[in-house]
């Protein structure tokens, strides 16, 4: 197996090349299928596993308890509010989470005391949270606002920087795929959707576009003087750019995923459900999906969007003519 540096060299020279652009039909078909599934699954399942922030209710977290019996928590809640439905989960070693319907202030304090008693912990090891039913909706509304404003501004920024709206459009199509697939995965796997997960989700968008911009910058560089040469067609130049930045893409996603994986590990195994786990889980999924979307969707989409421009068609023809001549070098790729 060649070292990654050799691998990089071969990608750079075009000796080794993966056909990201040429096989666009295949990638788009796969992406369309995944996107379709991502849309159908939430519809069939009736949405997402929404966190307490969206349902409204009270939540208690008991930490550092040696007793992790679920029934104890249920009994403790029932002893205070018999009618309340309690969802008791052992979310991490020595950590219990108890979610109930919305309780009044007095009930909250009473349940808290009952939990302190049953689980044999000190009062300050029980954390209580109360969330009104509109809070999650608030967070979502703001998040959607953020999403819309960000996407619009980013589209303008990219169109100005790359001086073509087609790059903007291709990047945004890639972004939409990332969003839908991540949302679909959340619905499929029943991961809890909390405000923290939404933060992570918004960060993915930023990361995903960031990744696309880096690759597109190389694409722009490679296709800058497309008309002055007849070695490669436009699509081939785009593909070369993607291949040339492939080592970067791999390195970047590995380096981005490693710290996120660290948070995910700590969040899941040591802390239990909460900000860290929810945030890192959506990032973990999103970074991987985002990197793939840049390679398989955004770049081929850009080539496809421009392929029918008259100048580029003419250029592709010239390349074909030159290749037909006997003295031409063998085509790369």
């Amino acid at each position, binding site marked *: 197996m060649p070292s990654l540096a050799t691998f990089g060299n071969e990608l750079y020279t075009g000796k080794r090349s993966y056909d990201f652009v040429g096989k666009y039909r295949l990638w788009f078909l796969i992406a369309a299928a995944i996107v379709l599934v991502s849309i159908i699954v939430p519809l069939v399942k009736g949405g997402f596993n929404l966190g307490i922030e969206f349902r409204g209710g009270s939540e208690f977290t008991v930490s550092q308890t040696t007793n992790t019996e679920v029934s104890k928590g249920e009994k403790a809640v029932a002893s205070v509010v018999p009618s309340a439905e309690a969802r008791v989960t052992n979310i991490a070693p020595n950590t219990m989470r108890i979610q109930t319907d919305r309780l009044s202030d007095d009930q909250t304090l009473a349940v808290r005391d009952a939990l302190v008693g049953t689980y044999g912990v000190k009062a300050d090891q029980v954390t*209580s949270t109360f*969330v009104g039913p509109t809070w999650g909706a608030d967070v979502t509304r703001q998040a959607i606002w953020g999403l819309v404003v960000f996407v619009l*501004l980013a589209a303008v920024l990219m169109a100005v920087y790359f001086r073509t709206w087609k790059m903007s459009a291709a990047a945004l199509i890639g972004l939409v795929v990332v969003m839908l697939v991540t949302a679909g995965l959340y619905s499929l796997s029943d991961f809890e959707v909390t405000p923290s997960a939404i933060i992570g989700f918004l960060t993915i968008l930023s*990361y995903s576009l*960031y990744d696309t*911009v880096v690759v597109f910058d190389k694409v722009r560089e490679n296709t800058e003087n497309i008309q002055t040469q007849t070695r490669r067609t436009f699509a081939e130049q785009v593909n070369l750019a993607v291949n040339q930045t492939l080592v970067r893409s791999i390195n970047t996603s590995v380096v981005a995923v490693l710290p996120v994986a660290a948070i995910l590990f700590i969040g899941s195994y040591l802390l239990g459900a909460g*900000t860290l786990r929810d945030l890192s889980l959506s990032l973990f999924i999103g970074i991987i999906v985002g990197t793939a979307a840049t390679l398989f969707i955004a770049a081929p989409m850009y080539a496809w969007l421009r392929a029918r421009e008259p100048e580029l068609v003419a250029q592709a023809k010239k390349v074909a003519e030159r290749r037909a001549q006997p003295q031409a070098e063998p085509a790369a790729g």
Partner: protein
Amino acid sequence: MARSRSTSAARRTLIWLGVLFAVLTAALAGGVVSSQAGWAPKLALDLEGGTQMILAPKVQGAGDQISAEQLNQAVEIIRQRVDGSGVAEAEISTQSGRNVVVSLPGVPDTKTRNLIQASANMEFRPVLVSAAGSAVPKESRTPKDQLPNPTAKPKNASDENWVTAALYQEFEAKECLDPAAATETKTDDPAKPLVACEPDTGTKYILGPVEVPGTDISSASFGQVRGNQGQSLNQWAVNIEFNSEGTAAFKSVTERLFGMTGAQNQFAIVLDGQVISAPTTNAVIPDGKPQITGSFTEDSARVLSEQLKYGALPISFQIQSEQQISATLGAEQLKMGLLAGVIGLVLVAAYSFFQYRLLALVTIGSLVVAGVLTYLAIALLGWTENYRLSLAGVAGLIVAIGQTADSFIVYFERIRDELREGRGLISAVDNGWKRAKRTVLASKAVNLLAAVVLYFVSVGNVRGFAFTLGLTAVADLIVVFLFTHPVMVLLARTKFFGQGHRFSGLDPRLLGAVPLYRGAGRIRQPSEAQPKARSKNAGAAAEAVRRQTIAERKAEQQREASAVGRGADKESN
């Protein structure tokens, strides 16, 4: 002298970075020495422990709409109430123009909680008795048999029969000069008399029942008093305007009070159980537009008129979410967050070594510099802007490790690309930087844009996260420009990296580079093994040639004197 010029530029840049660090550190040290700041960043509630309530203000009759002005008043009301309840270090802020966030250390009692939620309560009560604010010493208090003893049911709100023995004892014992006691806020019964303080003057009062509720105020303003000819009298006044019910009620109040003497001539404006003003009645006000004059400054007139507006806007608050986090859990989460950060950093470092050999030292060095820069910024912002680091913020910092490291990856890969083109390391660094710079700037702009947008539209935790993401994007840019690049310029001149040691991560042989110049004075033709047709080749080759040693250049000159264009500085080496 191209070579030494870029070296000294690199050195200068590093010195600037040093200056930046020195300034930031000195600023923080100054804050610590004057004990306004701490070395450690301030922590948010989820890491420090405490209670956070997110309140949605509700204005009676205004639906869900609340103006920025009303929200600011809401914050002001809550601040007064929380301060009044004796809770120290409470923080009150607004969120996304709609909500009020109250952060309190510890767990608030039911009383505080109710107080925070209740609507602002403004009312007009007649004064029955007034006295200096200090509590009457126990020995000189009125003996039991001389206490007032109401003989009949009170006829009106100013009737002294309201003053019972118990009320009078409460009044005598009341201490209004102690700031904590004086600013105590409470809810009161409008139909009963009230003992209250006026914190501004340190006076205490027994007040009759409510005669005009604050909701009857339709507006309040302040301005200068005008004389008969409309000339300014250089005296500040507060103007109140009542609605029709208020006008009628206030007319009958002033009709009664105008004829009375002493304290009973005064009426008190009470906000949340505190007297904010107790003017005397100089005239009967039939039109519902009283003017309060006195020793107002512009400021005090504005404050009073704004307080009167609260009365016109009875804002109550609904708890949207409430979170209580114990200090131990907070500390635990912080510990775990930091642990995750360390693990993430170690993994990134290990992967960098695997990929870039000793060049990874530059990555790690840059990450450390970025980390210190971010720490200084957070600590300074904690001091000046009261920025507090939350768990989501810590997560943002950890996520940023990867994104920051990516700038270096983009740069290193560009240098490698240039090496593959056959350049020497020095020119590869220069050329790679020119291209990487653009990419890094463009991609960081996207990051920064996302962070700024998120910050401005977001609520709650998202904000802390967006803030650290934005902060680290800026720190990243500073580090790439002021640290990573200059260090690379200098390292390119070292033997270890410059000659492409096997472990330097920049070994041209490993990178499969085909030198443009191949000993014996033979220059490779651009088409020979050049993988890629680029219009820049001529220029790039010229650049590469410029970077050759004198001996190489001379040898080449003999053979291909006219092959490549040279810069004007060709002999200046």
